[in-house]
């Protein structure tokens, strides 16, 4: 097995060890893993840490929801998105932020996916269509 494959495999194992309840990253488990790695550094220590960091970030972004909105109440929008099964309040950490640049509407970011229904986006579409 090549060294890069080893790094990928070890980092994936460490990620699996870091996952706690509801499939979320457990900070205590992560600290314990980091302490263990510090005390007994493996070969390719830096590469493993870098890859592990990337996997943790990617996993966390899969259940963290960034809700940007303008107009209305953040919790109301969250509730309506939950009703439409776009997000699950039990499984996702919802962070709602007021965003004036949207003019009106909302933008939800879950992992790499972005759902948007805002006046700013519609105006941008009109601009593109007219260019």
């Amino acid at each position: 097995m090549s060294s890069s494959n080893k790094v990928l495999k070890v980092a994936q194992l460490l990620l699996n060890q870091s996952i706690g309840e509801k499939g979320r990253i457990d900070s205590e488990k992560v600290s314990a893993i980091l302490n263990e790695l510090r005390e007994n550094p493996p070969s390719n220590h830096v590469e493993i840490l870098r890859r592990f960091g990337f996997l943790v970030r990617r996993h966390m972004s899969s259940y963290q929801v960034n809700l940007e909105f303008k107009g209305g109440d953040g919790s109301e929008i969250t509730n309506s998105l939950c009703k439409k099964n776009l997000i699950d309040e039990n499984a996702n950490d919802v962070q709602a932020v007021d965003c004036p640049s949207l003019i009106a509407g909302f933008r939800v970011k879950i992992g790499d996916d972005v759902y948007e229904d805002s006046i700013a986006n519609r105006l941008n579409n009109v601009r593109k269509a007219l260019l």
Partner: protein
Amino acid sequence: MNSITDLIRKEIETLSVDASRSNVGKVTMLADGVARVEGLSKVMYNEMVEFPNDVLGIALNLEEDSVGCVLLGDTSSLKEGDDAKTTGKLLSVPVGMELLGRVVDAAGRPIDGKGPIEAKEEYSVERIAPGIIPRKSVDQPLQTGIMAVDSMIPIGRGQRELIIGDRSTGKTTIAIDTIINQAKINKQGEQSGNKDFRPVYCIYVAVGQKNSNVARTIKILEETGAMEYVTIVSAPAADNPANQYLAPYAGCAMGEWFMENGRDALIVYDDLSKHAVAYRQISLILKRPSGREAYPGDVFYLHSRLLERSARLNEDNGNGSLTALPIIETQMGDVSGYIPTNVISITDGQIFLETDLFNKGIRPAVSVGLSVSRVGSAAQIKAYKKVAGKVKLELAQFRELAAFSQFESDLDAATKARLDRGARIVEMFKQTAFNPIPVEVQTAIMWGMQNDFFDSIDVDKISEAVSSLKDYLSAQGKEVCNEIYQSGKLEESTEQNLRLALEDWKRTFA
């Protein structure tokens, strides 16, 4: 004013008002027209990716933790940390008759200042080549108007014929001559009112060329009246490598529209050496493993998937065709280079141009020994086949004997006759640039050569004689030329008329 507001209202009405969904990522690296993006976990291979300030990119490298995108257009406004989002679309270009007479970039956007292109259809740039079943063997001629090519290396509709040679040996000239000849034939065919006439539309793809050269080509095509049948796709040397990489595929998509709609088209890729260099640049920046001459492993596939898209379709599929004339530049006449051998093996023959012949004043500098057309005489009209059948052999024998005769003081009569005939044929094939000769005139000249009409003329006066005969045939000899053009055959009566016409010409020339 009202029309503008109506236009805006119309656009707004057609817009979707639903919530949009996209997949996003962040730019982590930017270099030489290539961006590495973290995220974009749902991006498709070859999908268009949108960057800020309306910059578009194409996802070419899908890796576990990042995506490599080649960027199209001006990338100076982009920076690390910018958002990139998927569009769900593959790169497409406008296609159709509306593109004729226009100059466009690799994305099909007009760059000739003649306003927007109102194309009704769009084709994806990357398409799968026609399979075996819809194809038909090549049997219809595509006249280049160059005697040396049409007689010895005939090209058929749907064929891929490589034009190869060192720099400044007349490669582009052969391609431009062919385009000009198509325009002439198209005009002649349209005027004749023949319902079965099939015009050939042309696409000229300039990859990595100097802007001045592209401008010169456009000027020549406009001056000769050929531009109305031509679309020029330009990705000059100043353009980024992504555009240079995409331009041939964009041009090919435009040509495929003609083929798939039962029409004939000709596409010139000028040139694929620079195309390979642009692809090598992109691949190295994308950190793809490099192989021979630092080209990536798939450089053969780069050209094979492009040239395989040229084909002749059968009647069930519209009977259209796309003929390709790729151009390759060699270094010091070395045809055994990596890219030249690749393209030679993909194409159905090559026209090899020699620097020595060019410098001797033999233009077009076609090397008889190294040039070949794998379609052969199947792509010649019967009349031409009859007069040109032996020429290649005669010329090849002449070149061989000419080399040996330098060491001989005494030559036998047969050898002398062969050398004499060969020298005349060489002179006959000399042709000025951008001056293609119609096939019926070529047939008459070749017939004259085969029937000894040029034997009494000094070798150094043969070019003058050919030029004089051309003038004669386009004036007094029009009828006999028309006969050949209409029938495509050399009947006994036609040969009789041809003999009378040439005897008449010979009297005036002498």
